[in-house]
């Protein structure tokens, strides 16, 4: 399993159009000037893997994740992010070779998840992710400024990371 593409609509600085980031296996770098929207892509992925706290995606409320407009573009009504995973290795317990998991949130903070287009509960989505070891707070996503966290954390929390793996 790996990420084939990330699609965003109305999510943070990515405006009202549907924008897609095609990805492949191997080593990809995302570059660009300060403030251009790189870390917003990390937030978008954290959003789909089920993070609940807006603060962990640099907002105060979940509705802060919705595009809040510019001089020329109006605010978005909702933010939708979907990730299409390549499932040729059958990591996900789903028949299809491609699995698209998406999450949306509206300005009232109400959200929904979908798996291959069909509505799903958060716990169903987290369960599917757990088959391939993806967790909302997994050690495989390191937010900006957080790298030293693994060294500054207390020894028991560090044991927790290894326990999660075994």
């Amino acid at each position, binding site marked *: 399993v790996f990420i084939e593409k990330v699609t965003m609509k109305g999510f943070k*600085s990515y405006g009202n159009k549907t924008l897609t980031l095609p990805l492949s296996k191997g080593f990809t770098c995302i*570059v660009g000037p300060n403030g251009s929207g790189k870390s917003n892509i990390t937030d978008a992925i954290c959003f789909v893997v089920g993070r609940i706290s807006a603060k962990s995606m640099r907002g105060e409320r979940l509705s802060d994740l919705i595009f809040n407009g*510019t001089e020329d573009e109006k605010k978005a009504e909702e933010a939708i992010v979907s990730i299409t995973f390549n499932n040729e290795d059958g990591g996900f317990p789903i028949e299809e070779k491609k699995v698209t998991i998406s999450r949306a949130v509206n300005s009232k903070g109400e959200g929904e998840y979908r798996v291959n287009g069909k509505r799903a509960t958060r716990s169903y989505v987290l369960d599917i992710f757990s088959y391939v070891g993806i967790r909302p707070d997994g050690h*495989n996503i390191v937010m*900006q400024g957080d790298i030293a966290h693994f060294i500054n954390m207390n020894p028991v929390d*560090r044991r927790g990371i290894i326990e999660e793996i075994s």
Partner: protein
Amino acid sequence: KSEVFLKTFNEIASNFSEIFSEISPDGTAQLLLETEGNPFDGGIIVDAKPLGKNVKTAVSLSGGEKAITALSLIFAIQRYKPSPFYILDEVDANLDDSNVERTADMIKRQAEKTQFIVITLREGMMSRAERLFGVSMYKKGLSSMVALEVEKVVKQEEALA
């Protein structure tokens, strides 16, 4: 339960020491269990000695040394049980140029088995990527993305330098 844990711990600990010495030449590092008996009575300690120094505790490592040690731990876990993807957002911000290059080389090797998506501002990192995506905001407040060619960007960075 503690048997399974110990097996996992020992594998990751040996990966960790190996990887740390690759990224931090002359340095050695180990993962240690706080308690000898039941591992669940205590936690896991990181004992890193970059450049063979007599470092008391991980707390007294420098900013860059902490980042290198943390990355070694992530790679050690990935070698044992890879996640489907990794997203690393400016993990190289506190690294000097040679540590950026060594880390980038390590990511390139690990990326043969697993997907790595790395957000970076450093030329030593982006020049080793297989694919590059540029994010820009040419319209005020609106982000857009475009695929870039690695050679072109690297040439530009060098021209800037």
